[in-house]
């Protein structure tokens, strides 16, 4: 395995009497599509929100590793600082800037990534326009560039959000349930798009997901949490056959087997 992009070590978080996370460690490599799964209450959201900066762990570290450097500790950094270090993210309920066109949305993300937010005089219209159009092209949104974001269908909002998360050439993308709220067809298209982007850009993607079809159909590797502990970390096949994983999911029935078998 090449040098990882992100290294999470020994994360611990308590809420009152509940141990939400208990010494969770994993790493993610460039170009890898890593799924973070677990039953409700397993600590997925806590773990995810610590990585993206919305929560601070009680102990443990999140390290973002650049090319050839030992890595930067981003534990507890504000979300916008983490974003500026090259971490894109999408939300479970996709949010975009409703009062702007799709193109302006992506331009805004690019302007922010380049640190040009405090430009007070020159119009933003022509800034990063071509790059924004390219990103819309890559996410299949080119035809919608001029439409107000508030008038887009939800599937397109998700794509637009992905285009925005890709602005500024992130090395790591954090996706919280990337296919939530989509139809079966849209789900497949979305994850195939993400899959392709990881290959083309060498982008690492960490995502949480409830749909086992998506996880076992597309992820390179799966990390399984249960009651705050990491119980499995391995390839799709290894995790699927893991007895501990079977135990926490569905009490022993094979996981993700509906489509494959």
């Amino acid at each position, binding site marked *: 395995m090449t040098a990882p992009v992100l290294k999470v070590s020994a994360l611990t978080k308590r809420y009152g009497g509940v141990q939400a996370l208990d010494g969770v460690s994993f790493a993610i490599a460039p170009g890898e599509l890593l799924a973070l799964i677990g039953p409700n209450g397993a600590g997925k959201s806590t773990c995810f929100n610590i990585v993206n900066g919305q929560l601070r762990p009680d102990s443990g570290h999140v390290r973002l590793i650049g090319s050839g450097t030992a890595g930067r500790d981003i534990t507890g950094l504000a979300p916008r600082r983490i974003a500026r270090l090259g971490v894109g993210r999408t939300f479970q309920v996709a949010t975009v800037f409703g009062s702007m066109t799709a193109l302006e949305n992506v331009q805004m993300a690019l302007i922010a990534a380049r640190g040009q937010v405090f430009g*007070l005089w020159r119009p933003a219209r022509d800034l990063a326009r071509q790059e924004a159009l390219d990103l819309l092209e890559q996410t299949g949104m080119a035809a919608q560039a001029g439409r107000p974001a508030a008038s887009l269908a939800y599937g397109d909002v998700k794509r637009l959000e992905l285009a925005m998360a890709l602005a500024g050439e992130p090395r790591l993308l954090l996706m919280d349930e990337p296919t939530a709220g989509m139809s079966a067809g849209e789900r497949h298209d979305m994850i195939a798009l993400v899959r392709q982007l990881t290959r083309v850009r060498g982008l690492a993607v960490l995502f949480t997901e409830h749909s086992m079809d998506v996880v076992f159909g597309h992820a390179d590797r799966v990390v399984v949490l249960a009651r705050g502990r990491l119980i499995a970390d391995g390839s799709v096949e290894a995790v699927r056959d893991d007895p501990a994983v079977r135990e926490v999911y569905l009490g022993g029935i094979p996981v993700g087997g509906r489509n494959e078998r």
Partner: protein
Amino acid sequence: MSFESLLFQAVNGLASASGLFLVAAGLSIIFGVTRIVNMAHGSFYMLGLYLAVTLAPLLGETVGGALGFWGGIVAAALVTAGLGALVEVVLLRRIYAAPELYQLLATFALLLIINDAALYFWGPEDILGPRAPGLSGSVEFLGRHLPQYDIFLALIGPIVLIGLHIVLTGTRFGRLVRAATQDREMVAALGINEAVLFTAVFALGTGIAGLGGALQMAREPANLALDLSVLGDAFVVVVVGGMGSLRGAYLAALLVAEVKALCTALGVVEVAGITFNMSRLTLVAEFLVMAVVLVIRPHGLFGRPQPAAARRGEAEAPLVPLGPRGRLVALAVLAFFAGIPLFSAFASYAPVLALDMVIAALFAASLHLLMGPGGLASFGHAAYFGLGAYGTACAATVLGLPTPLALVIGIATASAGAVLFGWFCVRLEGVYFAMLTLAFAQIVWSIAYQWEEVTGGSNGLFGVWPDPPFDSANGLYLAALAVTLAGLVLIRRLVFAPFGLALRAARDSRLRAEASGIAVEKVRWLAFALAGTLCGAAGGLFAFAKGSISPEAISVGRSIDGLVMVLLGGVNSLTGPLLGAGGLTLLQDMVMRESAYWRALLGLIILAAVLLFPAGLAGGLRRRRAP
């Protein structure tokens, strides 16, 4: 300063804290259940006091002095509660689903109407109530006479706090109130009659405020300025204590009142050779308390972070630069205004009226920068108008600086104020932002009122006349037009520049903006500072236009004028505030000056605008034009 005088002031502070707490507690309970910040809450306090000073002597004639006094207080509180229930049924029920800004404005309109109603019924003179029978003496303690009534008032706060606690935890009504505060939808889903609950809560909250006012009968005269001063104090208390927490409200009221009392007790002190009259610095002390608490705990002592309020209503349409036709219209309007001096030969009033309109346009446009693209409704924009006006007036009169330089000094003053206050305000959003901006504006107003040596106190500063060539009506008008035009061009550029885009992004989705790497608070801070700076220019021009500046001209009414202009014109467009500024200035000039009850008139206009044209005039026009 002796220990005795400190003790005396401490008891005095406890008595004031009780009054503050009664107002803040009602405000807090009403907000918890209905999610409406009742801008008219101070008015119910004022009504309570007016009713008490009227009812107590009336009752006294029939049932005797003591029973009349206490009966008068109880009756005043009950009547206030009844009025509160009436207001809830007639007005508030229509606006529960409206955007926050409209709710704030509607209850502010109520404040204006109640104020003029009080003027109509009780007249402009202060009215003193009877002294408290049985409690008019004093208690000797450590050789010092402490007024009995102050001691009684000091006890009232904790008694009401405990009483409310018992009601909220021990009764079915209290459980419903707490449940509704936590999750309104759930309570509705459980089949509780929300309408009755809301009316009851509003009556309870206003009744407590009325009680607070009525209890002041033996301490201070009823007067028409109480509604706003009490409201400002209540906002400080609620922001410091944390919205929704009664304990927090009491603790904050105690903190604010005691710090003020301590300042009064200290009197004149000398630090490092400079003498300070601490009793004059009570408002600065209040500001410092609030500042320290907000830095350490942004949501107040006992407050919890509020979930980001979802923007209600439709998203705005994307902004597009003016097309050729729009440019032509803009140029025509500009040419018309530039040509106004030509009319002055036969209509000498034209440049004077046009000057008012131009200044109002800059004022409204600067507020719109915050409200529209920023999504932050400031209820204290008058502060920066005032800082600009007083800065300019001082520079022109005391320092004797030339007109342009005096204006620059005024703008710099407003800018500095906006940078300082803005740092605190941008940490908050929604109604919290509105409350904090209003509280800061009250502080600026009070400083203008209290710092007589520099500001001329209640009379203000006079003889602020511009030098030639700005000393003629036309000369000053053209200069003001040029400054306003520069301001409008700057705002227009800002809105389409990356900064304006980022400001709109933060308004549309703060979460997404942060995730994209936008420093939302910094962007908003700069917007606040720029809006304050431009508003300061309007204030400076105003001082020259009137030749004077007084606290009256920078009161909360000025802030509300700005909000009404933006609202009348429509928040969603950049031309809206200009239309609104022109319209309201004309209206004030032609109609309101004729009436003694212009406040009520303005209130009715606001209510009509809120209830009939929720998108504003420009919004209405645009809708009609759209297919």
